[in-house]
C-alpha cells in the first residue's frame, strides 16, 4: 500500500497539471480505484489537517510506536498554507523553545529524503539577517548568543562580509548582520508529503477529501469525529487545521477555543535572472525593510510582513482549498520598494507572480499547542505565525510526546493552549490583535513591550482611579495591570521612542516607588491573580490538596502556606499560596495566567465528588497589596485592630473590617519579602477600601506603585516566579525550596518519589542568583532574560529573569546553573560547592559581564526577623 502511495505522490509532484485535471475524478491518494477507501469505524488518534503540522504529528506518533492513527485532509495533502509556504527553515528565533523546535526540524528535514525517498528540496543555504540600526544589531546579537550556546553555528558579520556571501546586496545602509550557515530551504509541500509517506509506511491511514464536521465530546472527553464520510470513534483528536482551526474548534457543541486569525500574506516570484541565481545563495532577512528574500529556481522569492496587514476570514469562510487570492500590488508596493533598495540590481528582473497566501497568527505571536482545557484528548497544533515549516518538525515531535507520555520533553508552557482563556477568542479581539501581531514579526522586540490592541478587557474596579493618577498599563491574560505611576508633570517618551535595550525612561520613577515600599508604604493593585476556593463537606478538600501539593496543608485555621503544585516528576505545575479559611475550606492564590491551566489541573486531579466544590472566585475579589514598614500602621488605624507581629504574624490570614467595609480577607504576605499585607476585598467595597487606605496612608507617606517595583523587589530577594523562573521541569529541590516540601507529612503526594530521590542524590540544576559586578547601569545593555551564564568560561545555563535592584544598586539576574561533564556533556549533580567555587559571567548580546553567584538572598535586606521556614519565597508574576 505505502509503495503505491509513495509512487503516486512522486508522480503527481512531478506533474502538477495532471493533478489539477484529474482531481475531480480522484478522491483518495491511497487508492487508484474510483471509489475512495472507506473510513475505519474507529481509531486511537484522528488527526485533522494534512499540512506540515498534521503530517508531522502523524509521523512522530507513528515513530513512537502508535499505529492506530487516521489522518484526515479536507482537500489534498499539503494543499493549504503549507503549499504556498516560502520554505525557509531558520533557527534564528528569539525564544529558546522556538529555537529548539526549528533546530530539530532542520535536522529532521535534512535526513528526510534519505529516509523516505521523497525529494524535499532540502538545501543548506544559510541565512543572513541584516541590521540597519544599532538596536537591530543588538537584538541579533542576543539571538546569536543563544544560538551559539545551543551549539548552532552562528556569527555576527560585517556588511563587507555580507557582500561576499551575497553579491546582490546593497550594504550601504547596514551596520552589521547575523549569519546562520546551517539554515536551510525546503519545498514545504514535499516535506509534508515525505512525512506523510513515512507515516503511512508506519501504518498511519491517510484520507484525503474528507472533511471533519465536528468532534464529539462526552463528559469532557473526546469520543469521536463526525466527517462528511461517516463517523470515526477515537480517543484522541488532533486539530491541525491551520487557519480553520478556530472554526473547527467552535463547530462542536462544546467549543474548544483556539485563538488564531488569518491574514493575507504576499510574496513575489520572479523569472530567473540572466545569470540564474545559485540555489546555494543564502536567504536574506531584512527586518528593518520588513522583507525576506530567498533564491527560487534561478530567480528570487521575496515577501514580507507589512505594517498594515489585511486580516481575512474573520467571519469564517470555509473552502475546500485556499484559492490563490487576489494579488494586491498597491499593498505590496512598500515591500517592493524595500526589495529594490536592498537589491537594486533586480530592477530589470521580470515578475512571474505575486502570491497571496493566508497565514494564521495568534494573539501573542507564539504558536498554539497542547490539550484543550475543556476536552481531554482534544489536542491542538496550529497558529504558526508564518513559521510553520521552521517549527513543523519540532512542534510535531513535542505534541506526539505530549499525547503518548502525557507531557512533552521540553517546557512548552509558552506555547500551551492553556495560556489563553475564552476571552482571547472573540473574533473582534483576534482581528484587531493579529493586525498588530503581523507587523510585529519584523518589529524590533525590546524588553517590556506591551500589545496595544485588544486592551482594557479585564480591569480592576479601581482602573479609572489609578489611571487618573498617572498609571501606565500592561496586560496579562487580558487583565490590565499597572506598570508604574507617572508623577504629574513628569512626561515619559512616547511608545516608539521609549523602545530601548538600555536604561529605560521609567528608571527613576520605579526607583522612587521601590524606595517608598522600603521606607513607607505602597499600594499595588494585584486583582489579576487567580483565586480559587476549595471546600468540602468533610475532609475531602484537605485530603485531595495534601495529595496535590507538596507542603503540609494540615495547618491551623488562619495560616497561609506557600506550596508548589507538582506533577509526578516533581516539577512545578503551579506555585501558589493557600490560606486555610476553615477546617474544610481553602483559599488559593496563583499567578494570573494560571487561571485556565490550574483549573484544568485541579479538575483533572480532584476526585469526582459532589461534596468537594472548586470555585473560581478571581472576579469576586479585588486585591490590594500594601507593601512597606508602615502598612501595619495604616491597617491598624483603619481597622482598630492591632496588626503588629505578635497579633498578626507573618503568613497569617484573617477576615476583618477595614474602614466601613467588613469581611475583608487580610493576609500577611506581600509576594515580595517586604513586610505588609494583601487585602482581598469583595469588589463592591474596592473603591471604598482603596480610598480609605489612601486617605489614612497620607500621613505615612503612602503612594501607588506598580508591578515594575514589585518585580525589582522580588528579584533582589531571590523570589522565583512561576512561568518565568519556574516551570514543569523544575522541582522545589532545584530552586532551594526544600522547606516548602514536607516529605514526611504522613501522606503521599504527587512528585514525592522524585523529590525523595533528589534529596538523596542531589539535583542536576540549581536556581542561582547573580549580581552583575562590572555592569554600568547607565551605559551598558540591560539584561532581560534568556542570557547565557558562563562558569569559568564554560556555558552552564541561562537566566530566567532579571531586574535592577535599587537597594544593591546592581542588576540581579536569576537563572539555572547546570554541571555539564567537560568531555561528554552529560549532566552531573550540581553541588553547593560547584556553585560557590566558580567564576561567573553573564552574556548580554555578546558582551560578558562578571557576576557573583549566590544561593541565598542577602540576609541584610531582611529587616524583620522571621522563622526560616516562614520566609516567604513565592510570587506570581512574570513580565
Amino acid at each position, binding site marked *: 500500500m505505502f509503495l503505491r502511495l509513495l509512487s503516486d505522490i512522486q508522480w503527481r509532484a512531478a506533474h502538477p497539471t495532471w493533478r489539477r485535471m484529474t482531481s475531480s475524478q480522484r478522491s483518495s491518494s491511497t487508492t487508484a480505484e474510483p471509489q475512495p477507501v472507506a473510513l475505519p469505524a474507529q481509531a486511537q488518534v484522528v488527526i485533522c489537517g494534512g499540512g506540515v503540522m498534521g503530517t508531522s504529528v502523524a509521523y512522530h506518533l507513528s515513530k513512537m510506536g502508535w499505529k492506530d492513527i487516521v489522518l484526515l485532509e479536507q482537500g489534498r495533502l499539503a494543499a493549504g498554507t503549507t503549499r504556498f509556504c516560502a520554505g525557509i527553515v531558520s533557527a534564528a528565533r528569539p525564544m529558546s523553545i522556538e529555537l529548539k523546535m526549528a533546530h530539530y526540524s532542520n535536522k529532521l528535514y535534512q535526513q528526510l529524503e534519505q529516509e523516505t525517498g521523497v525529494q524535499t528540496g532540502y538545501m543548506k543555504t544559510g541565512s543572513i539577517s541584516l541590521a540597519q540600526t544599532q538596536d537591530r544589531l543588538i537584538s541579533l546579537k542576543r539571538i546569536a548568543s543563544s544560538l551559539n550556546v545551543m551549539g548552532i553555528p552562528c556569527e555576527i558579520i560585517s556588511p563587507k562580509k555580507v557582500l561576499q556571501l551575497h553579491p546582490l546586496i546593497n550594504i550601504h545602509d547596514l551596520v552589521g548582520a547575523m549569519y546562520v550557515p546551517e539554515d536551510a530551504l525546503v519545498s514545504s509541500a514535499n516535506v509534508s508529503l515525505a512525512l506523510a509517506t513515512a507515516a503511512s509506511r508506519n501504518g498511519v491511514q491517510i484520507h484525503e477529501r474528507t472533511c471533519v464536521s465536528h468532534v464529539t465530546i462526552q463528559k469532557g472527553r473526546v469520543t469521536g469525529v463526525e466527517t462528511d464520510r461517516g463517523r470515526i470513534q477515537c480517543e484522541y483528536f488532533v486539530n491541525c487545521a491551520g487557519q480553520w482551526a478556530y472554526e473547527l474548534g467552535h463547530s462542536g457543541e462544546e467549543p474548544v477555543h483556539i485563538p488564531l486569525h488569518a491574514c493575507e500574506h504576499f510574496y*513575489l516570484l*520572479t523569472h530567473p535572472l540572466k545569470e540564474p541565481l545559485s540555489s546555494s545563495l543564502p536567504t536574506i532577512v531584512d527586518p528593518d525593510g520588513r522583507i525576506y528574500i530567498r533564491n527560487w529556481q534561478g530567480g528570487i522569492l521575496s515577501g514580507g510582513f507589512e505594517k498594515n496587514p489585511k486580516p481575512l476570514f474573520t467571519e469564517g469562510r470555509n473552502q475546500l482549498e485556499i484559492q490563490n487570492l*487576489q*494579488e*494586491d*500590488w*498597491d499593498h*505590496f*508596493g512598500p515591500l*517592493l*520598494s524595500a*526589495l*529594490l533598495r536592498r537589491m537594486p540590481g*533586480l*530592477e*530589470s*528582473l*521580470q*515578475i512571474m*507572480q*505575486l502570491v497571496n497566501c493566508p497565514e494564521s497568527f495568534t494573539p501573542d505571536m507564539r504558536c498554539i499547542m497542547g490539550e484543550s482545557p475543556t476536552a481531554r484528548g482534544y489536542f491542538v497544533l496550529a497558529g504558526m505565525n508564518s513559521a510553520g515549516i521552521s517549527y513543523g518538525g519540532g512542534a510535531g515531535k513535542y505534541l506526539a510526546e505530549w499525547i503518548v507520555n502525557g507531557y512533552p520533553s521540553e517546557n512548552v508552557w509558552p506555547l500551551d493552549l492553556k495560556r489563553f482563556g475564552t476571552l482571547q477568542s472573540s473574533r473582534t479581539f483576534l482581528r484587531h490583535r493579529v493586525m498588530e501581531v503581523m507587523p510585529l514579526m519584523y518589529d524590533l522586540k525590546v524588553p517590556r513591550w506591551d500589545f496595544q490592541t485588544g486592551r482594557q478587557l479585564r480591569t480592576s474596579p479601581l482602573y479609572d482611579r489609578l489611571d487618573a493618577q498617572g498609571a501606565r498599563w500592561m496586560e496579562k491574560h487580558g487583565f490590565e495591570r499597572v506598570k508604574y505611576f507617572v508623577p504629574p508633570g513628569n512626561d515619559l517618551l512616547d511608545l516608539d521612542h521609549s523602545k530601548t535595550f538600555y536604561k529605560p525612561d521609567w528608571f527613576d520613577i520605579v526607583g522612587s516607588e521601590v524606595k517608598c515600599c522600603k521606607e513607607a508604604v505602597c499600594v499595588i493593585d494585584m486583582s489579576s491573580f487567580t483565586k480559587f476556593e476549595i471546600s468540602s463537606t468533610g475532609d475531602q478538600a484537605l485530603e485531595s490538596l495534601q495529595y496535590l501539593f507538596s507542603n503540609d496543608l494540615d495547618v491551623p485555621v488562619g495560616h497561609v502556606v506557600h506550596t508548589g503544585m507538582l506533577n509526578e516528576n516533581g516539577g512545578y505545575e503551579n506555585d501558589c499560596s493557600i490560606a486555610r479559611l476553615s477546617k474544610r475550606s481553602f483559599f488559593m492564590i496563583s499567578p494570573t495566567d494560571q487561571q485556565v491551566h490550574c483549573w484544568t489541573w485541579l479538575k483533572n486531579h480532584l476526585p469526582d465528588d459532589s461534596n468537594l466544590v472548586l470555585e473560581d472566585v478571581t472576579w469576586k475579589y479585588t486585591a490590594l497589596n500594601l507593601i512597606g514598614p508602615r502598612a501595619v500602621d495604616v491597617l491598624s488605624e483603619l481597622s482598630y485592630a492591632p496588626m503588629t507581629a505578635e497579633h498578626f504574624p507573618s503568613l497569617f490570614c484573617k477576615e476583618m473590617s477595614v474602614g466601613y467595609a467588613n469581611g475583608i480577607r487580610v493576609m500577611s504576605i506581600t509576594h515580595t519579602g517586604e513586610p505588609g499585607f494583601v487585602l482581598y476585598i469583595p469588589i463592591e467595597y474596592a473603591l471604598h477600601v482603596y480610598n480609605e487606605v489612601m486617605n489614612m496612608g497620607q500621613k505615612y507617606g503612602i503612594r501607588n506603585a506598580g508591578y515594575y517595583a514589585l518585580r525589582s523587589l522580588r528579584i533582589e530577594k531571590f523570589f522565583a516566579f512561576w512561568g518565568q523562573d519556574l516551570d514543569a521541569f523544575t522541582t522545589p529541590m532545584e530552586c532551594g525550596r526544600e522547606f516548602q516540601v514536607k516529605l514526611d507529612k504522613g501522606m503521599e503526594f504527587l512528585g514525592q518519589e522524585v523529590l525523595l530521590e533528589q534529596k538523596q542524590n542531589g539535583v542536576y540544576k540549581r536556581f542561582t542568583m547573580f549580581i552583575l559586578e562590572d555592569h554600568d547601569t547607565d551605559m551598558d545593555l540591560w539584561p532581560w532574560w534568556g542570557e547565557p551564564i558562563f562558569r569559568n568560561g564554560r556555558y552552564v545555563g541561562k537566566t530566567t529573569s532579571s531586574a535592577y535592584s535599587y537597594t544593591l544598586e546592581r542588576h540581579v539576574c536569576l537563572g539555572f546553573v547546570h554541571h555539564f561533564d567537560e568531555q561528554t556533556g552529560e549532566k552531573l549533580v550540581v553541588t553547593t560547592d560547584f556553585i560557590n567555587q566558580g567564576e561567573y559571567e553573564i552574556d548580554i548580546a555578546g558582551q560578558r559581564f562578571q557576576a557573583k553567584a549566590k544561593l541565598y538572598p542577602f540576609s541584610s535586606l531582611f529587616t524583620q526577623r522571621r522563622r526560616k521556614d516562614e520566609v516567604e519565597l513565592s510570587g506570581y508574576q512574570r513580565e
Partner: protein
Amino acid sequence: MLAASCCDRRMCVCPGPRRIAIPVRSSRLPLLSDAMPAPAHLFPLIRNCEISRIGSTACYCHHRHLCCLSSHFAHSHFRYAPQKKFAALYRPKEHFNHFIHTRDYASTPQRFYLTPSQVNSILKANEYSFKVPEFDGKNVSSVLGFDSNQLPANAPIEDRRSAATCLQTRGMLLGVFDGHAGCACAQAVSERLFYYIAVSLLPHETLLEIENAVESGRALLPILQWHKHPNDYFSKEASKLYFNSLRTYWQELIDLNSGETTDVREALINAFKRLDNDISLEAQVGDPNSFLNYLVLRVAFSGATACVAHVDGVDLHIANTGDSRAMLGVQEEDGSWSAVNLSYDHNAQNEREVERVKMEHPKSEEKSLVKQDRLLGLLMPFRAFGDVKFKWSIELQKRVVESGPDQLNDNEYTKFIPPNYHTPPYLTAEPEVIHHRLRPQDKFLVLATDGLWETMHRQDVARIVGEYLTGVHHQQPIAVGGYKVTLGQMHGLLTERRARISSVFEDQNAATHLIRHAVGNNEFGTVDHERLSKMLSLPEELARMYRDDITIIVVQFNSHVIGAYQDEEL
C-alpha cells in the same frame, strides 16, 4: 481684546482717526530681537521684516487694528469683490516675494519653511471625526459619520462649529457659525442653537416631562449628545442664564400646545428666530453679575451667521442664515462628482436678498441700503444672529451702551451708529430652509464657512471630497497577468499611483484634506507644499489678509440605508 477684534473685513465701522498702535509695536521690537537667536522660534525673519515694513510704510491697513473707513474699504473691495478675485490671489505673492527677498540676507534660509510634519500638525490641530456607532455590525443611520476641522486666520478664531445627535427625537444636527466683530456671538450660537432646535422638535409630552423634571429637581432627560473636539468649549458661567432662557421657551411651547406634529422647517425657523430674540433680550435686560452682563452685551453686539443641517433618515433640512454654505456631493452614474447647492448666500451677490432688504424699507433708503456690496455699506452678510447695531433702535442702543459697563463705553465700535440708520431692524436671523430627500447617489454634505468658498469652487470641492472618500478604491487594481513586467517598471507604476493618492493618505479627515487643498492648491489644482507651508507660516497678524477662518464639516451618508428607505417606499 474687543478693540483688537472689532475690525474685520465683514464689518468695518471704524470712525475717527487712524489708530495704529505704534507704541505697542515698538515695545515688541526688542522682545522679538531677543527671541531671534532662539532656535525654537520658527519665524523670526518674517516678524522682523514685517516690523521693518510697518516702520517704513507707517499706515498700512492692518486688520487687527482700528483703521480708517476709506483705506479699509479700498482694501476690502480689492480683495473680496468677486470680479477682483485674481488680483486678490496675486497679492499674497507680492508679499512673499518681499519676504523672500529679505530672507536672502539670512544665514539659515531653510528655517523659513515648515516641514511636512509641521504643516500636518497645524492642519490637524482642530480636526475631529465622528463615526456613528454600529450595533451588531450594522449602522442603521443614514449618516455614516462626519469629519470636521477649522483653520484659524483670526486670533482667536471667530468661526465655530457644532454637531450633536438628538436623543429625544431622531436625527442629527450639524452646523458651522461664522462670527464677526468678535467670536462671542458665534460662540453663544454654537452652544445654544441646537438646544433651541431640539426643543422646537420635541413632542408635547416630552416637553411636559422635561418641565416636570426641572420643576421637581429630578434628573433631566438628556436632549442632545454632543460630538465635540476638545477645543470646542462651552461657557460654564453663562450656562444657567442660557438654560433659563431655554426653559422659558419650552414653557411657552407647552402653553402654545398646538397638538400638531412638529414640522422640521417650522421648528428650525422658530428656533433661529427665538434664539436671536433671546440674545437681544438678554442684552437689554442685563445681568447682575458683571462678567455675565459684559458677556451678553458682547454676544449681542457681535454677530454670527449660521448654516445648520438636520438629517433624519432621508430627510435633510438645511437652515441657513448668512453666507456660509451647504453643498451636496452627488456621484453620477459614471462615477464623476457634481455639486448641488443646498443653501443660498445671504449677501449682496444674491439678488433676491437685495430685493428682500429693499422691500422691507422705504424707497427713500434704497440707495443707502446696500453700498459697496454691504448692508448699509458695512456688513457683508445680509442675515445674521446678534448684530444689534443693525436691529435695535438708536435710542435703545444708546441706552444700553450708556448703562452698560465701562468696557462697552470705551469701545468706539459699540458707540458708533451705522450711517443712514432710519428704519431698523435692517437685519434678521430668520433662516431660509431647504428640504432635500436624500437619494443613494447623494454621498456627502459639506457645510463650510465662506473661508472655504472664497478659495474654491463648489465643483472642485465635490470632486476633491468625493475622490477622497472613495479613496484608492477608485483606482483599478493592477494585475500582472501574462504581461512581461519587470520589478523596476512595477515599482515605478506603484510609486506613481501612490503619489496620486498620497495627499489623500496623509489625511484621515475629509475636512482636513479639503483645507489642505483650499490653502495649498496651486494653479494646477494640486497641493503645493511650498505654498501650503508659506500660507501656514504667516504670523497671526498677517494671516487674516490672505485667508479667512475656514470651518468645514463633511457629513458622509450611508447609501445602503438610504437605498433601503427608497426600496421601502417602492
